[in-house]
């Protein structure tokens, strides 16, 4: 389990990194925390000609407010996001989700840019980027462009980037909410999710004004459930609201199956988590 031969470059600016990718002629691969890339290299499932290491680039690791958004640098480690007071107060769903990301040693190395780019269908940050409607700032040979999270994830482990493009930073809009919840089930603490849902709710005294819903672990990419959001805005709240919500969520996805869970079981889990999440989101503020 040793990687095939590759060249290694360690640029100190994003411009130089892009240049290195251009020079690699489609054979380049960016190295961030290495937590997903290195296993793939060792299994020889990916064989880049050149590894372009981003870790020597200054200024790619930050968490800062920008108006009604929070900007996070691509090289920011999971652990920094998990422990950030700014994230805890402005993006509480993200703060709640971060402790489910892998294990401490992996969170110390893994980066947000790497997690989004890796595009695992059961990874928390890709789902959160959809949930918040994040925008990724991407740099390539032609300069920077902005990619909406909903356009970024193409398929399982596939994003929309060109081989010469690098994610530089991500902006997360802060959501107005009255209540929220994040629910996840994984075989063991720190494993990739079997099913997970994030919900936030704006409500009046007896009706839901609007909801935001994203799920993961059930399809080839994380999903934002806009159709359910539409059907649930303006509905009145009663005891049966969480169950109705659960049914709606379940009927709007058809879960995948794998070694750990059949589609029926995943679907069942998602339904239970949806009800639980809505209950929590509604009781946060009566």
């Amino acid at each position, binding site marked *: *389990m*040793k*990687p*095939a*031969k590759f060249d290694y470059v360690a640029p100190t600016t994003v411009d130089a990194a892009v240049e290195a990718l251009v020079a690699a002629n489609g054979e380049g691969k960016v190295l961030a925390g290495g937590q997903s890339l290195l296993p793939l290299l*060792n*299994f*020889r499932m990916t064989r880049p000609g050149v590894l372009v290491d981003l870790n020597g680039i200054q200024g790619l690791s930050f968490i800062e407010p920008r108006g009604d958004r929070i900007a996070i640098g691509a090289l920011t480690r999971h652990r920094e996001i998990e422990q950030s007071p700014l994230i805890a107060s402005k993006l509480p769903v993200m703060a709640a989700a971060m402790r489910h990301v892998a294990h401490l040693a992996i969170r110390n190395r893994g980066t947000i840019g790497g997690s989004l780019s890796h595009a695992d269908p059961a990874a928390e940050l890709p789902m959160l980027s959809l949930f918040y409607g994040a925008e990724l700032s991407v740099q390539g040979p032609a300069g920077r462009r902005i990619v909406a999270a909903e356009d970024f994830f193409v398929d399982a482990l596939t994003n929309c980037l060109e081989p010469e493009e690098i994610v530089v930073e991500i902006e997360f809009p802060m959501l107005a909410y009255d209540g929220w919840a994040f629910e996840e*089930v994984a*075989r*063991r*603490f*720190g*494993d*990739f999710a*079997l099913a997970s849902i994030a919900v936030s709710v704006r409500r009046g005294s007896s009706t839901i004004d609007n909801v935001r819903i994203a799920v993961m672990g059930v399809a080839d990419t994380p999903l934002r459930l806009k159709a359910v959001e539409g059907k649930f805005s303006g509905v009145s709240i009663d005891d049966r609201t969480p169950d109705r919500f659960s049914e709606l969520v379940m009927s709007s996805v058809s879960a995948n199956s794998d*070694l*750990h*869970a*059949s589609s*029926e*079981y995943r679907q*069942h*889990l998602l339904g*239970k988590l949806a009800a*639980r999440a809505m209950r929590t989101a509604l009781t946060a503020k009566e």
Partner: protein
Amino acid sequence: MNSDRPAQPLDVLRPRNVGAPIRRTEDPRLLTGRGEYSADRKPDRPLHLAFLRSSQAHARITRIDTAAALASPGVVEVLTAESIVKDFKPVIPFSRMTNYYATPILPLAAGKVRYVGEAVAAVIATSRYLAEDALELIEIDYEPLGAVSRPEFAVTEGAPLLHDAAGTNVLVAREFKKGDVASDSKAAAVRVGGRFEVTRKAPLAMEPRSYTVEYEKRRDAITLYTSSNIPGIVRDAISESLDLPGHRLRVVAPDVGGSFGSKGSLYPEEILICIAARRLRRSLKWTADRLEDISSSSQAFAEIVDAEMGFDANGIAISLQADVIGDVGAYSIYPWTCGLEPVQVVSFLPGPYKIASYRGAVRGVATCKPPTGPYRGVGRPISTFVTERLMDLGAKALGIDPLEIRRRNLVRPEEFPYRIASGIIWDRTGFVECLDAAAETAGYRELRSLQADARKQGRLFGIGIASYAELTGIGSRIAVAPGMPINTGSETAKITIDSTGAITAAFGVASHGQGLETTLAQIVADDLGARFEDVRVIQGDSDEVPMSTGSYASRSAVLGGGAAKHACRILSEKIKRVASHLLEANQDDIEVFGGKAIVLGTDRAVTFRQIAKAVYSDMKTLPVKAREELSATYTYDPINGTTAAATHIAAVEVDPATCFVRIVKYVVAEDCGRIINPLIVDGQVHGGVAQGIGAALFEELVYDDDGQLLSASLIDYVIPSAPEVPNMEVVHVESESGVEGGFRGMGEGGTIGAPAAIANAIADALSPLGIEVSLLPMTPERIFRLMEQAKLKSRGKSR
């Protein structure tokens, strides 16, 4: 001066090491990265091995082309079965069992491959990277012969044969019988039964298998550093296979990072690396990566058991019958044979119970998977799972409490020694005492009332009990594996005081995590009268004792400890003889304690160092005849061995939403005889239970019908991690056994009791839904399906 002799034996007054919670002396080095494992050896300019492994489950090899690989940078040699034919004799896992076919063990697949992951070719290069690059250049043509994945399919007419010479896929078949089962079963007031299954496991030691061979050109000699728990067996087998005498073949198990059975058999790679060293006259290294370790180390369990138990109206079990199919994989392993695991299932099925009549039939069936081998508990986790499920089913059918039905059936203190229906003899052990202690510690009555409350709230709360007994530290009268020609009944201790007064105790046993370095030193210190910190324990080195087999089958404390006690007795007599000269006292008035020989009741004493000096260095003080070498060797054989037993009680709650099982309480009451070190005993129980939790809830090697392994990484092969292992209470019922020292083996028990206790607890939790548990692991997915089926059934009924 005999009058001032104390009335009490001295060892009662002296602080003793045996029984004390002494911290493991190996831990500081192991925990700070200063241990030395096989891969840490640094021979002079070693070469590196990499194996090309079969991608096919069952196929004829029609062509291998190694030319391109051989021309690849850094490559020194590429070996295939054909190129090494003259370098070795195949190793045969012989047994005297009838109805057994011994599949020859070859270092590389010859003619055909029989499982995905079997080594077909070996590249030897100047680095592992370059060796792996070259692997990709080897071309192999295969002609598929049809995969055999399910054991039920393997025994059908017309299934492809894995070993043509065997004429069948049934590599071993046996039957145990006592009494008239058919008529006892007919006479029973109730009969319970079913089809039970425990799936395939990976032992999964933290350190993968790893071999370094150091070649000594000077005398064509080899030292093999192997992550093995049977270095002595490996030495003898390779000596025979390569025709290399023991003084030119040294096998050492240095620090070994766990085995759980996976390092307890001879491996093709171990033979091959020695062949390569002799051919090339070079030192070599190989360490399995995780994928290789999961897909080519011996695997575990994989049995299907059809069983039925009959009870009389009082809940006394009167008959038991079982048909077992063991999915033993593609080959029989050396030295244990493919009979080891499945035959033990039928040997141990009657468990600690007095069941009058028994029939147990077993077939070990070849499939396209790596061989099964020893795994912590061997056979008994499955036999206990089945028997304990049957006990609970019987209790339910008769309306008797599960605790009470076990009390009625366990062998009672006055009935030992007791021969159970399969022929095993239990010596005096605290069966009933363990049951009672576990029930009391768990608060069994309170748990039942908690359960009643939980059920009222619609919660799924269950309690499970498992009692079992096992043979440990067995001597020469019983073979560890049936009909096997190797002496597994004895172990040697060689204890020496050198010219500096330092004590070295050498053993053939080979700790791979059990802490023998500590426990054996405790025994030696007490029995020799030495200070604990002055005793160095050497183990797992074939140069140290003439013959040994190693550490397995919960034998090392009993056999190694027993040998140590005898050797100490001989050596301490020698010490006293020398001291009586030096101190001018009667030998009977001398006591050896704390590294000194002391004249009782006086302050006259000589240290071991002074004694050693007088014996070895000083030509004047002692008469020539009195200068006996301060060394003693003893080979101990407990002949029969001894029993160990425990009762486990688990309380679980099943979450109906997620279908996850949470272990709320876990209690073990065990009888391991005299405790040498309570910290180590607790640690062994904790680790064993953690592994049993893996078997009960998580771990499963999944092979598809084409023989491809689907769970070949630690993402897909799920083991319990710290949050999944609950706190446990461990109670010790310390009844001394009949062997030297009163010890009993206890390294495996945790894994034997836990699957059954948890299975029973889950079944109890789900019983309001009419669900029974007959397959492990009980994953959330399986519980979900059972609950869905139960829902459909109850809907069907209400309609």
